[in-house]
């Protein structure tokens, strides 16, 4: 779900960078406001690498298998570090696997990163509740994961289809977006369930991971 080089007009690429810059700046500022920002850097870095690795796990979805995007989980675990983490992850992917692209890095960071921040806010609402049972954690995890990937898919399709040089009429375009989004529904559900399950696992085994950063 990464937009490659060459397909978007230069203006859109530039707009992507222009949008990603302030979000990065804001995230870095929030990180620097902590009492000891340095202490979290190794944590965030290793978790960034870990997310990269976890996204290599094959999830069977006959007849093929899929890789998860996990930007919702990333937001849940990393909070404000999520945006820089995604930026770095996308950069590695572009450079090492030619997945995504250098000119589209900003656009892709927005597509993946903004929803991650949204899911961070969603999951943080869990803190309002007194009791954090596994069920509650699971439900919040599901919603966070589902919402993040859902928003990503929507952003991706809108940006791609409105910029593709096909002169489609508005109605066709809208239908295409709806159909393609619907086709992603199973993937969104799997992402949500997976995010919920991991959140429950973390709460059982290392609850600090869910509220440390």
């Amino acid at each position, binding site marked *: 779900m990464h937009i*490659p*080089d*060459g*397909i*978007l*007009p*230069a203006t859109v690429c530039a707009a992507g960078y222009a949008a990603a810059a302030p979000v*990065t700046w804001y995230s*870095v500022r929030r*990180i*620097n406001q902590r009492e000891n920002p*340095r*202490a979290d*850097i*190794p*944590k*965030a*870095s*290793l*978790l*960034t*690498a*870990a997310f990269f*690795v*976890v996204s*290599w*796990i094959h*999830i*069977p*979805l*006959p007849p093929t*298998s899929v890789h998860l995007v996990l930007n919702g989980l990333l937001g849940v675990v990393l909070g404000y570090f999520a945006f*820089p*983490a995604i930026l*770095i*992850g996308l950069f*590695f992917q*572009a*450079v*090492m696997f*030619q*997945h995504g*692209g*250098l*000119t589209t890095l900003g656009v892709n960071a927005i597509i993946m990163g903004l929803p991650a921040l949204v899911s961070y806010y969603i999951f943080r609402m869990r803190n309002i509740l007194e009791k954090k049972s596994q069920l509650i954690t699971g439900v919040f995890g599901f919603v966070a994961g589902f919402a993040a990937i859902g928003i990503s898919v929507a952003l991706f399709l809108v940006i791609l289809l409105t910029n*593709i*040089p*096909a*002169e489609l009429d508005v109605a066709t375009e809208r239908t295409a977006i709806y159909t393609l989004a619907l086709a992603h529904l199973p993937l969104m559900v*799997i992402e949500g369930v*997976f995010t919920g*399950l*991991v959140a*429950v*696992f*973390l709460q059982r*085994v*290392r609850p*600090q*991971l869910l509220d440390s950063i």
Partner: protein
Amino acid sequence: MKLEQDKYASLDSPLHRWEPRCKFVGLVALIFAFSFVRELSMLPAMMTVTAAIYAISRLPVSFWLTRLRYPSFFLLVVVLLLPFLSGQTVILSLGPLGLRQEGLISVMLITVRFLCILTVGLVLFGTAPFLTTIKAMRALGLPGILTDMALLAFRYLNELGDDLHRMETSMRLRGFRQHRLSRRGLGVLAWLGGSILVRSYERSEWVYRAMIVRGYGNAPPPRDEFQVSAGDVVALVVTFLVAIGFVAGDILI
């Protein structure tokens, strides 16, 4: 999995010798100029410049071909779909489908732009150790948090990848098979993913301790000293001119 980024980083060529900061700025400018191109008539020039750069870099063609494997799926989709979707001028009808001229033109534009950008990107990151390039980006003013994170994440990527590989092997040896999507299967994979997160979190605590014991943050990070020669600057100016040429040419034509 192996990261083969640095396989040809120690070859010797003008591009390998180009000062990393100048190279970064120059080639990135060129990449963006390429993404600006919308005129068919600019494509030959673009391909010539790209081919010249790749030739000068002395990177083997096999490297380029292996790197193309991943994104070729995307190219295929574009090539197969766009000519039928885009434009009005049907030049060939195949039953209900019409091959359209505008679509073919945009396929060519997209494909060439894509390949040229990818190739220049390969040269940019393939002609110096990846770390040197990141340090050059730091020297160019990328925020410290981002470079520190990138360097650390890069360092542990292999380590964690090996962890995952061993864990998957141990699961397989205990009979875990994942042919179908099942509730239990997804749960087990979530445990696997969660375990990777927990392991890296715990390791990060030790890494942090090891860092502060050796004075992390005590002194500002060293200024990476890159030596800029006159030749580096000339190459940068030339690349800039080429990049401007593409943008101007595209606007004027």
